[in-house]
């Protein structure tokens, strides 16, 4: 008599319909499998009985006090969430430095008094352009490293991609945020490239830390098939041109550059 596998027993316990009748019939006959099912049940009983400390009645108030100073006032602009302190940190020190450099450049250049009020928004816009550019640069680097690795040359059975995986993981959240912002800002071309990038980053982030040459080749193939490297480069190029243009031409107010829409 063929016994029911642990996986089948588990699925049965979960109420799955596939093969349900034959498993039930087998369980009726087989004491061994019944005992195994009981043991699985016991594991969940132990799991359910695991104690969780009670945080106390005042816990909600405590949490509120802990976070209230870090909650920025809500503003109506689509980019408002972007400039919360946590976001700026996520954008990375490099982007912040660049932003500072821009800002310094703007405020030290000779100008008439009235322009300065408009400028805060423009600085933000530029930070955004720089930050997305930065983000794409980091993504491009990972994809290039993965594409250029020769799986067979070292003769190793497994290829360790833990570093790339970790970096991809970090970029996923950032990427989602930029994509959402681009969408909210009506910048569909960038949003769609970020969307494709998201899938590739997720692929890498969700891979095991060590992959077989075959798995590795399939990651490479997916990167190549999407042509994502090229798309990322094009957008990056355009963003760079964009930020150059803004530097040269500070008075224009065009937050959604049309030049990018062909990407």
């Amino acid at each position, binding site marked *: 008599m063929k016994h029911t596998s642990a996986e089948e027993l*588990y699925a049965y316990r979960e109420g799955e319909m596939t093969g349900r009748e034959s498993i039930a019939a087998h369980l009726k006959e087989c004491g061994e499998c019944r005992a195994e099912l009981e043991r699985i049940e016991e*594991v969940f009983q132990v799991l359910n009985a695991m*104690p969780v400390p009670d945080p106390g009645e005042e816990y909600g*108030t405590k949490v509120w006090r802990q976070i209230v100073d870090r*909650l920025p006032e809500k503003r109506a602009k689509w980019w408002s969430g972007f400039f919360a302190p946590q976001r700026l940190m996520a954008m990375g020190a490099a982007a912040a430095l660049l932003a500072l450099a821009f800002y310094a450049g703007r405020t030290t250049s000779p100008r008439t008094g009235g322009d300065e009020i408009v400028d805060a928004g423009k600085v933000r816009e530029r930070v955004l352009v720089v930050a997305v550019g930065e983000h794409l640069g980091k993504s491009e680097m990972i994809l290039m490293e993965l594409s250029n690795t020769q799986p067979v040359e070292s003769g190793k059975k497994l290829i360790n991609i833990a570093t790339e995986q970790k970096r991809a993981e970090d970029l996923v959240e950032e990427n989602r945020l930029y994509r959402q912002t681009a969408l909210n800002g009506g910048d569909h071309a960038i949003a769609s490239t970020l969307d494709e990038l998201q899938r590739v980053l997720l692929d890498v982030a969700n891979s095991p830390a060590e992959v077989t040459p075959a798995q590795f080749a399939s990651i490479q193939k997916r990167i190549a098939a999407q042509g994502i490297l090229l798309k990322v480069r094009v957008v990056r190029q355009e963003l760079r041109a964009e930020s150059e243009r803004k530097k040269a031409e500070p008075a224009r107010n065009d937050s959604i550059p049309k030049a990018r829409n062909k990407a």
Partner: protein
Amino acid sequence: MADAIGISDVAAVERTLAGERDAYRVLVERHSAYVYRVAYRMTGNPHDAEEVVQEAFLRAYQKLRQFAGNANFGTWVYRIAANYAIDRLRQRKNEESRRESPSRKTESETEVDPLSQIKDQAPNPERLAGSAQLAEKMKEALDALTPAERTAIVMRHWDGCGIEEIAEVLKSNSSAAKNTVFRAAQKLRLALKPFAEGRNAAKVVGTES
């Protein structure tokens, strides 16, 4: 603030979005304890759990516009907490593996089959028959799971989440998520094998909350 206490979650979200920051306090006070319990189960220690709670409410505040009343706020903040908890777990595991062997140990290597660890420890079922030890073994087994496995099993069996919801947090598809839940369950089963053979052993573990 006083007039905000009895308002619904949806109204509190709307008022927060309209610029009334204190309306968010209602949501924090209402849902903190629940999020804490989830966070504790996922991270396994009170310190990390508290951090997850704070971060979840901060993130929820930042993303509040995306929520826009289309789901239950509790469920939504739960998912944000789960997302952050899995990141936190991964970070912890990475730190641990770096401490253990600075050169090349990776997550998958440190998280070996719990069964092999138990064999090394030469279990003594009589000694472990007590309730505290069983709970302790379960805690060890949970700590030995990968972040994805731990998140998956907590979501599935403690919180009764659907596979789709788990897949979303794990950033994978539903068949992979289902697999992860099974793998986690199987690891716990193997880890407890030498100790949980006695019928209804779980009854003696007891609950605190």
